[in-house]
């Protein structure tokens, strides 16, 4: 079910073609029902996007700094965007690809592992269930001040046995990210799984479906909205993660956008804001695209999935 069909349907069902027949009444009604929502939408859009207009403006002004932006868009020069892809020491295109790959795999893995665990917590009763749920949350509350040292030691230990998945490997990094797959995500899904009536499972069970079948073919479909939310959260989390990635990934060709971008402004005394800003603007595109793509699942709602 796509948003367009929804809208067409709701147009047909709720408000007869506006503006044409009875302009005044329609407008009042429009204002009461959705007009104020648009006002809030516009205000919030300005609030959310304004600081980033700065960034966009800075990206169009090679040689400028972030503070130049008080006079927004004083220059329209796409030089920084071109320059971004022509730096052999800072392979932006490779970073972009790596980020998509690492973010994509990690978020798929997170969704899968998290959903498995949430299913167990929601549908099964076993000793240690409550304690287990609580522990998952508590583990993630530990201040990560020393995580870097520990992760370095751990991965260098793994490197001794499997160089391919240890330090300087993207698989190693993905595994570290998957370590955080449970935790908050499991809770988010657990809450949602609980809202799926257990009568559905039981009906399927009576039909003779095994637990794996129920899980993969019925439950996962019903909880699609939350899978999409968790997938997106995890994708954003991994793509913007910086500290661990900079320890694990050593070769510039293997690094991610967050690590690479930081290089543009961390050079002592030779910060390149414009290129950095251009890189950040492009870096936001995958997240936006993914969100656009997932939105229909996120707001599709239960009814959309449970029909079939």
């Amino acid at each position, binding site marked *: 079910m796509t948003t367009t069909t929804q809208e067409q349907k709701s147009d047909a069902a709720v408000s007869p073609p506006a503006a044409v027949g009875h302009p005044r009444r329609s407008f009042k009604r429009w204002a009461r029902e959705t007009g104020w929502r648009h006002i809030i939408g516009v205000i919030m859009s300005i609030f959310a996007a304004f600081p980033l207009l700065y960034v966009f403006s800075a990206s169009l002004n090679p*040689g*400028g*700094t*972030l*503070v*130049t932006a008080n006079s927004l868009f004083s220059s329209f020069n796409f030089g920084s965007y071109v320059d971004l892809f022509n730096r*052999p*020491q*800072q392979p932006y295109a490779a970073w972009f690809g790596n980020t998509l790959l690492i973010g994509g795999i990690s978020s798929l893995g997170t969704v899968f592992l998290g959903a498995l665990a949430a299913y167990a917590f929601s549908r*099964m*009763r*076993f*000793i*240690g269930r409550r304690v*287990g749920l609580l522990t998952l949350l508590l583990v993630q509350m530990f201040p990560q001040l020393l995580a*870097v*040292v520990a992760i*370095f*030691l*751990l991965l*260098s*230990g*793994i*490197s*001794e*046995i499997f160089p391919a998945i240890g*330090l300087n490997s993207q698989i190693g990094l993905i595994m570290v990210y998957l370590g955080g797959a449970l935790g908050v995500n499991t809770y988010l899904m657990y809450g949602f799984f609980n809202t799926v009536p257990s009568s559905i499972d039981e009906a399927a069970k009576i039909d003779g479906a095994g637990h794996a079948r129920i899980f993969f073919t019925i439950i996962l479909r019903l909880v699609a909205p939350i899978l999409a939310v968790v997938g997106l959260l995890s994708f954003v989390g991994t793509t913007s993660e910086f500290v661990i990635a*900079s*320890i694990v990934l*050593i*070769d*510039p060709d293997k690094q991610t956008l967050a690590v690479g971008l*930081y*290089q543009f402004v*961390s*050079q*002592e*005394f*030779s*910060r390149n*804001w414009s290129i950095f800003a251009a890189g950040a603007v492009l870096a936001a595109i995958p997240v936006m695209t993914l969100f656009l793509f997932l939105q229909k699942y996120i707001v599709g709602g239960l009814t959309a999935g449970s029909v079939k």
Partner: protein
Amino acid sequence: MRVNNKGLWAVGALTVTASLALTGCTAASDTADNGAGTGEALTVWVDADRAAVLKDAAADFTAETGVEVKLVQKEFGDIRDQFIAQVPTGKGPDVVIGAHDWLGTFVTNGVVAPVELGDKADAFQDVGITAMSYEGQVYGVPYSIENIALVRNTALAPSTPATFDEMVTMGKAAGTEYPFLVGLDPEAADPYHLYPFQTSFGAPVFGTAADGSYDADALEIGNAGGDKFAAWLAAQGAAGVLNTNITGDLAKEKFIAGESPFYLTGPWNVPAAVEAGIDVAIDPIPSAGGETAQPFVGVQGFFVSSKSENALAANEFIVNYMGSEEVQTALFEVGGRAPALTASFEAASADPIVAGFGAVGENAVPMPSIPAMGAVWEFWGVTEAAIINGGDATSLWQKMSGDIETAIAG
């Protein structure tokens, strides 16, 4: 709610958890014992800017000696902590690029090995070798030396000012928005950029021992000159000449826009000004307190890990390749930092900007690399910012001096 063998499950989960955690621990400690695995390739950490130049030098080195050089690109700022953390595990690099003021921490942590420059020591500028020395021992091969100086927009100010006051007068006469620019942080000012003025009042941070190295026990920052400097800061802050709202980026921006004839900065900001079409001259830093204004000098260079299994190759690489005129000149050309090798520096001095900064650098002193400096940074900048913004000069400055002393005594 029935599930089979529920007890077993709990035990199982516990075992997995515990055993895997132990796996990690043991694996990690194994690593620490084994030391660096490969004795083949030489691992060198550099930042992105310099990786390109080193690539050629590394290729030459490999061609001549057969030793592979693996260049690892790191954030310059990350190198220090990661080097200290990784060398003890035996997984660290053989060679790193770094700043001389990290040396104290490196030596205290035992992660660097002394470097024998042999007869080559004379080929470097003295300040470079001094900066790379710690307790009488040389630990690094210097490659660049840099310091700040007064950058003047010749279109707005035709001559070199002799004193700070004269500069401000000239700056006001130029009719620009600001008589003088220096980038400060609203919260922590910038002791590095303000240091030449502080020394012109005769208030260095530390006194020096007989061999010219800094003496942590002789804190001089709170002397009578220091008080005068503090009063001067307050006066300049009140007059608006020093303004903590003008950050480094803003100062650069405004100088490029031609809004001030004078800009106290390092060589790193000059190219942008030149590109913007400003004709610049590099002047000595005018004295504010009567004595010579001595800026800090920062030296960058290469260090060898104390746990390197390629000690000979690493030495060969940094002394004979990184220390060669060819590489030093190439590094200068890419980064614009004045070379530490005298021959390369002289060649680079054909550029009046390099020569100008070099001339100012003759009065400069190395930034202290002794660990006690950490305690100084902690209080220094915020106190300066508070004084510039109207705090009570003398009492704050003395309070700072006392706090630093307490912190050093630990």
